[in-house]
């Protein structure tokens, strides 16, 4: 390693200034002013001489005065030692330029009033300061915007390190010259031996300096990323487009015009038109693709060609249960809306009137609603316990686990069977794997026990009906009703309200949700929501139990006389289309299917009436069948009467079509304005909006019609159950005066209830219940459930026809009545006409004569000159 250089005092390299600065640097540094100026004192004489009087020729603002060198020399010569410029004599003589700068130093920065600038460079520098201010400022500004300005270097000690490390010559280079004497050049050489006594040997020795190992070494490192670039190429084997995006080409208007003008188009049109017209005409004449043969036979589509095409209703299954149905009759039957093959019947006591007299009346047997399933005809699947006999019950359309029923004592009852739905579903044929798989030994126990569900809630006794409830219906999920009786939109889209009617002349609207008053304590109930009471009753409707009051009540005052109608059955219009929200039934159905969220009924709250929009265009009218056989068309909206109170409006019309109890009022599932009513010995079909009466009335039959229902798949077919246990099938398109088929002796007793159901596209069932507590399920044959192609249209046309006929009939009726009246009036007028007429004629004649007489009198008197105008007195 090279030895370190010894430090020596060196003068900094660049400090040697060239120029005419003859003063030594040491001297210069000792003074307080730079080397190239010389402070001097100028006497006033000198000042006057050179024209640099203080504060007159030179001032603070212009302190510079240029003095000619010749003048100075002259002055020096003339005044020699006295001259003020004598100290600078040599400088002046040596000055290369012609003019020296004298600066008036007002502030005495260099201790004297004036100073002479000794070097031309300094003079230039002082005279023309290198304009540092402005450009520097500009540069600063410029630099500030972009990069940082170069700042003066602050020494942090790094120059010492550099100095240490740098290589400097410590002394002058020494050079030696070795030469031989000239005369010895070329002389012969003579080598001789000699003993070397003293010789220097350089022996290698261990230098201790090299034994020390350096343990720590500073060196620098830089990490360089290794970069490698490579490339590859894929093989595009099948060149094809996966997506293309394009816009269609279109012609501009100008092009179009051009084309329109050209001859080609004209020829084209002319040649093509006849063909096209012919084709259009052909199309219009007849439809060549219509297969008449195929359209003829509807039954032969995929029917069994074995020849066993059944024409009539075939018995599919019969349900009965000894334990529960003994001595009971069935008052109402309903199919479960979602589970296949499950139906529920309500059982009521028979011989009720007689039971009141006998003492055995108080043998209380609980009333039940029994669920049957196709898989098990002799055992009921589920029992619903009722407080009393139920005359009508319905499944909730939004949630088939909620069932509402109307009691014989006027109360409304609610059940929630959600806990047992799985059991019901498990009883479907083909799903036997579910519950009984694990518990083989407990099989007997399980089968014997039919689960019993107690009712969740009953209405308050004092606010219920006073007579048995004969009809219960859920309001459709599209609307609901407020306390004031106004229809409003239903935000939840579930059915939450129930309408009941009873022969106590009232129609009541009920709501199954929690009212606002109870909502505070509802929070407590929420915690217990999933717990059950000791009876195993779900808490869904606990808020309603025994305190349930109807929303409002609609009474049915009679039209002409005082008193009220006693309704037995009613039918509401199912509101399907809402112009306000723009949602149709299909949309609502889709929403239900998509979400499949059935709200928890115990959590539903009644909203404040103000937040819901009233439905303006809603049809609030309904058809009611009464005890006396009348069919009433009335509005359930409450109106204000004279005294300002809310009251039910009078019915719009009422017809005594049936003679006795009306047992069915049902809307057609295909048309929302066609209603079938049935009672006593005939039935009638009504169209909503036609005020004149039923559009179709049937002739009276021999037996009493006790039950009826529309077919769910064919708009023209409906079924009637009779008193003697027979069923009639009517088809309006084929025969209007008599039934299409009569199936006698379906049951042995009176048919109490009949309900049709479409279980699947091939299986249509008709459930028939009778007075003995038996339920029979009949299968409807294909002829009766497969509709024709245009059956809906045909039936609609038929109804329209009937309506027109009816209207026409009414018109004619009126006309005839009018004519009759007129004829009578005419007769009456004939006799007393003449005398009356002669009297008036006489009067007129008399008046005329009198006027003539007056005129005559006037003229005569005037002639005599005695005319006094009597008109004055007459006039006043």
């Amino acid at each position, binding site marked *: 390693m090279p030895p370190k250089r010894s430090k020596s005092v060196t003068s900094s390299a660049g400090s040697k200034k060239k120029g005419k600065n003859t003063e030594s640097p040491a001297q210069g540094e000792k003074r307080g002013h730079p080397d190239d100026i010389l402070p001097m004192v100028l006497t006033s004489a000198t000042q006057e001489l050179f024209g640099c009087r203080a504060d007159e020729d030179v001032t603070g603002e212009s302190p510079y005065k240029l003095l000619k060198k010749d003048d100075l020399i002259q002055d020096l010569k003339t005044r020699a030692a006295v001259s003020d410029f004598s100290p600078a004599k040599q400088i002046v003589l040596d000055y290369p330029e012609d003019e020296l700068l004298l600066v008036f130093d007002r502030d005495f920065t260099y201790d004297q009033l004036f100073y002479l600038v000794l070097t031309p460079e300094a003079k230039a520098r002082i005279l023309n300061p290198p304009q540092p201010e402005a450009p520097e400022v500009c540069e600063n500004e410029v630099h500030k915007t972009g990069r940082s300005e170069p700042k003066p270097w602050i020494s942090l000690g790094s120059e010492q390190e550099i100095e240490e490390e740098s290589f400097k010559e410590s002394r002058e280079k020494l050079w030696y010259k070795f030469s031989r004497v000239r005369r010895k050049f070329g002389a012969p050489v003579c080598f001789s031996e000699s003993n070397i006594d003293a010789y220097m040997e350089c022996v290698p020795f261990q230098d201790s300096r090299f034994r020390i190992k350096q343990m720590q070494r500073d060196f620098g490192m830089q990490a360089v990323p290794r970069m490698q670039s490579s490339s590859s190429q894929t093989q595009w084997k099948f060149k094809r487009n996966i997506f293309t995006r394009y816009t*269609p*080409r279109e012609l501009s208007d100008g092009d179009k015009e051009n084309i329109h*003008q050209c001859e080609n*188009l004209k020829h*084209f049109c002319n*040649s093509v038109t006849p063909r096209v017209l012919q*084709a259009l005409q052909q*199309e*219009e004449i007849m*439809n060549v693709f219509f297969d008449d043969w195929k359209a003829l036979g509807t039954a032969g589509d995929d029917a069994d060609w074995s020849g066993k095409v059944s024409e009539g209703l075939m018995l599919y299954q019969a349900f009965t249960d000894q334990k529960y149905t003994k001595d009971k009759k069935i008052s109402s039957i309903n199919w479960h809306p979602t589970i296949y093959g499950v139906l529920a019947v309500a059982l009521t006591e028979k011989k009720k009137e007689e039971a009141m007299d006998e003492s055995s009346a108080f043998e209380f047997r609980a009333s039940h609603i029994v669920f049957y399933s196709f898989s098990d005809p002799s055992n009921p699947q589920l029992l619903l316990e009722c407080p009393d006999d139920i005359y009508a019950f319905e499944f909730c359309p939004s949630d088939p686990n909620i069932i509402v029923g109307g009691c014989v004592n006027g109360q409304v009852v609610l059940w929630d069977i959600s806990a047992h739905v799985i059991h019901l579903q498990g009883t479907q044929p083909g799903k036997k794997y579910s519950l009984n798989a694990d518990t083989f030994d407990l099989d007997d126990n399980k089968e014997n026990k039919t689960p019993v569900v107690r009712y969740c809630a009953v209405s308050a006794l004092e606010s219920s009906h006073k007579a048995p409830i004969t009809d219960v219906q859920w309001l459709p999920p599209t609307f609901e009703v407020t306390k004031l009786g106004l229809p409003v939109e239903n935000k939840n889209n579930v059915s939450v309200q129930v309408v009941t009617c009873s022969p106590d002349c009232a129609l009541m609207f009920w709501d199954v949700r929690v009212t606002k008053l109870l909502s505070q304590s509802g929070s407590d109930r929420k915690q217990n929501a999933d717990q059950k009471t000791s009876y195993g009753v779900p808490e869904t409707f606990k808020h309603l139990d025994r305190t349930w009051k109807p929303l409002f009540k609609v009474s049915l005052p009679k039209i002409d006389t005082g008193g009220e109608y006693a309704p037995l059955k009613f039918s509401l219009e199912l509101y399907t289309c809402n112009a306000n929200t723009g949602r149709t039934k299909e949309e609502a159905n889709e929403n239900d299917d998509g979400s499949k969220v059935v709200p928890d009924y115990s959590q539903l709250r009644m909203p404040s009436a103000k937040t819901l929009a009233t439905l303006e265009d809603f049809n609030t009218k309904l058809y009611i069948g009464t005890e006396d056989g009348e069919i009433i068309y009335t509005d359930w909206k409450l109106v204000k009467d004279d005294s300002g109170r809310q009251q039910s409006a009078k019915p719009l019309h009422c017809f005594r079509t049936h003679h006795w109890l009306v047992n069915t009022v049902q809307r057609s599932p295909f048309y929302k304005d066609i209603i079938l009513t049935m009672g006593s010995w005939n039935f009638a079909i009504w169209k909503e909006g036609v005020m004149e009466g039923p559009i179709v009335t049937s002739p009276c039959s021999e037996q009493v019609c006790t039950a009826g229902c529309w077919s769910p798949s064919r708009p023209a077919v409906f079924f009637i159950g009779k008193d003697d246990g027979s069923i009639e099938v009517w088809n309006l398109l084929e025969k209007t005066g008599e039934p299409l088929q009569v199936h006698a002796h379906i049951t042995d007793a009176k048919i109490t209830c009949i309900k049709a159901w479409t279980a699947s596209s091939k299986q249509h069932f008709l459930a028939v219940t009778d007075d003995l507590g038996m339920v029979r399920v009949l299968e409807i044959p294909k002829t009766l459930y497969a509709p024709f192609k245009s059956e809906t249209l045909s039936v609609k046309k038929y109804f329209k026809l009937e309506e027109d006929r009816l209207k026409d009939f009414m018109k004619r009726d009126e006309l005839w009545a009018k004519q009759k009246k007129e004829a009578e009036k005419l007769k009456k007028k004939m006799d007393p006409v003449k005398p009356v007429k002669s009297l008036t004629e006489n009067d007129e004649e008399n008046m005329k004569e009198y006027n003539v007489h007056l005129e005559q009198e006037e003229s005569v008197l005037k002639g005599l000159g005695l005319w006094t105008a009597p008109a004055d007195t007459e006039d006043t």
Partner: protein
Amino acid sequence: MAGTEHTNVEDTLKRIEAHKGVIGTIVVNTEGIPIRTTLDNSTTVQYAGLLRHLAMMARSTVRDIDPQNDLTFLRIRSKKHEILVAPENDFLLIVIQNPSE
């Protein structure tokens, strides 16, 4: 003269359009760009594009079987309506008709 030719074309096409059951007419040139139409733009473009290919293919089919033959008319009957396509030297006339049922 050009004007009268134009009106002739118009009149002829109007006769077709006024026929019973006609939903719309489209006149298409060789490239498949609709020249004249009574339907809305998107439908027109769709019909023109699709039917042109079909008509060409039908024409080539007919001519493949018998080179002396040529396609005069193409009718497509669908459930909802009937499409009539009449090809000519340079143009194509498409008529959509609703058959009376």
